[in-house]
């Protein structure tokens, strides 16, 4: 056996795991106390509405062409479906917004004519136009990840705000405010 001093693990290697653990601890402390946000928001907020032209969802009602969203007036675009439960919850609020003169366009996702008709009969029909997005492609083009979602679009076709989830009474003020902003 030689006389060289016995090998010792380097200092930095010994303390490295503890340092890594402290980093982990800090990270998860922050993570635990941040409010959990499970929604996937659209990355198109602040950008222009994508071009689309959806066929009519109901016979006798016009479909939805995105050109109409750039006609100078701010619009609400509501992505919904008859099989969606929170969409029923927000129906009264949409009705109120429609009464207040806000043009609301509907995109019905992965739906059928009869179910849609039944839904509108039960919950009211605040929509000016309803486009049928059976393939779900326009939903994807908008960056929408579920229903219901409501987009505030300004007169030039730019998406100003995305509201994820149903519109509850307390959100009405917020939406009207965004619509006001969009007017400028």
């Amino acid at each position: 056996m030689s006389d060289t001093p016995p090998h010792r693990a380097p200092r930095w290697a010994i303390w490295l795991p503890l340092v890594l653990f402290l980093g982990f601890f800090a990270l998860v402390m922050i993570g635990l106390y941040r409010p959990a946000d499970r929604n996937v928001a659209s990355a198109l907020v602040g950008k222009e509405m994508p071009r689309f032209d959806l066929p009519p969802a109901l016979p006798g009602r016009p479909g939805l062409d995105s050109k109409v969203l750039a006609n100078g007036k701010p619009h609400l675009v509501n992505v919904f479906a008859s099989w969606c439960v929170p969409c029923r919850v927000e129906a009264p609020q949409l009705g109120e917004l429609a009464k207040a003169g806000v043009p609301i366009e509907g995109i019905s996702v992965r739906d059928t004519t009869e179910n849609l008709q039944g839904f509108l009969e039960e919950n009211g029909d605040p929509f000016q136009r309803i486009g049928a997005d059976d393939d779900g492609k326009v939903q994807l083009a908008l960056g929408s990840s579920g229903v219901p979602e409501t987009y505030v679009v300004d007169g030039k076709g730019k998406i100003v705000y995305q509201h994820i989830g149903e519109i509850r009474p307390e959100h009405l003020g917020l939406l009207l405010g965004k619509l006001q902003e969009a007017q400028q």
Partner: protein
Amino acid sequence: MKRLMLSLAGLGPAIACLALMAPAIAQEEQSTAPYAYRQLDDPAKETKAQDLMESLRCLQCQGQSIADSDAPIAGSMRSLVRERIAAGEDPEAIRAWLIERYGDYVSYAPQLTGLTWPLFAVPAFLMLIAFLLLRRRFTGKTEDAK
């Protein structure tokens, strides 16, 4: 109420909006998009599409690629991918289109951006540490070995 996450694999209507408390309402149907459950005829294109689908994340599931999910929105995304690949579009262009709309979240293949550079730096860093540890362990030994 404590319950296990029931949205495994998007089985059943696993979408954010469908409250499982009221099953009496119309269920979301499977996606009727043409290529949600149908493969492309050209096998080379189908392989390209499959590789892309395996690296795109289902937007409503708890952590699945669209290739592995029963959720209807995943079906719509699959159809989108297949139709575009059939039309000759490059898979990375389709990925970029989706990232433009959903952010980096939608892609399982991390893009090298200002936010994700640590993911690539860490393996390099680990190699460096590995090298330092091994070098330190063994230099000074080669004389011993003689």
